């Protein structure tokens, strides 16, 4: 009996070690942390999120956000003008949490997230027919596939491409 118990403890310990090893491999492989944006600001969420998903600040560099925020009266073909106080608050929030990585060298700041190198490489495996799906409609429609885009979670686990 005593022997059985010792055996059990050994087997258990080995199982735990194996599990831990498997988990750390899984974590090492999982770079989803890059795709979760946890920053929040109530004005940004309600104003930017009124017409489209409130795109996380980390998806564009600060100069892009500044250019977007200074042209709201003609925002991708729509009037999205804001009162000065809200615009200032949102601009500060976007700048503070903007993408600080290396980005494309160009004369003009990129205004479309879908034109960033990052967006293109992340979506390189998405077949053309998915983009043409009426349920997707536009590359800017994150929520069509990223089911948790509204909460800033773009991890692959929560992607569901509409058929």
């Amino acid at each position, binding site marked *: 009996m005593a022997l059985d118990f010792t055996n059990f403890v050994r087997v258990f310990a080995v199982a735990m070690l194996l599990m831990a090893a498997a988990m750390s491999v899984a974590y090492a492989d999982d770079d989803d942390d890059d795709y979760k944006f946890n920053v929040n600001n109530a004005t940004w969420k309600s104003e930017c999120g*009124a*017409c*489209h*998903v409130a795109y996380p600040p980390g998806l564009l560099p600060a100069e892009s956000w500044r250019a977007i925020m200074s042209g709201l*009266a003609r925002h*991708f*073909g*729509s*009037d*999205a*003008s*804001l*009162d000065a106080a809200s615009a200032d608050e949102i601009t500060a929030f976007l700048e503070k949490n903007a993408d600080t990585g290396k980005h494309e060298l160009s004369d003009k700041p990129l205004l479309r997230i879908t034109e960033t190198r990052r967006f293109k490489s992340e979506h390189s495996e998405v077949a053309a027919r998915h983009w043409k799906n009426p349920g997707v*409609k*536009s590359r*800017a*429609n994150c929520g*069509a596939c990223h089911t948790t885009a509204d909460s800033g979670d773009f991890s692959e686990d929560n992607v569901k491409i509409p058929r």
Partner: protein
Amino acid sequence: MPWHMGAGRGCSGHSTNLLNGVRDKFIFDAELPIHKPLNVTSIFGETWMLRAISVFGLLITAAGLLVNPAYAETPVEVLAVLKTEASATPGFQGFSAARGESFFKTKHSHDLSCSSCHTDNPAAQGKHAETDKLIKPLAPAANSERFTDMKKVAKWFKRNCNDVLDRECTPQEKGDVLAYLLTVPKN
């Protein structure tokens, strides 16, 4: 002095003779030894009743705020503001729901109308023509949040009129549309 003995004087501000009669009867019953009423003042002090009333009042107010969120304006007040603005235009003869409905459903510039996004039934959920984002019903009967914040009303009229008509709407047009929306029943 026990509270019930002063009832005829202390609380008689709004009472009638009939009520006094009833109270007298009650006092009479209460004077019987077995029904001796509890002397609240002697137990809780003089301010007990006042405190109870104020706490009760606060609770009622809090409950009221929870049930009915305090909006800055009502749609009718917003309409009144638009009317004041429209009155500055010579020849203003009031708003028309029928004209508002026609304006709402007519395509203006870029093949767009108000109903392109808000649908032909403003009591129904709409969808942004460009982004497909769902839009909550616009008619106040279907969505009590609508037209309760003048600042928000001004912001969206400015934006949407610029998109749909390539210009801002006149106070007359805005008032007509709101007059129409106020006639739309809940689905």
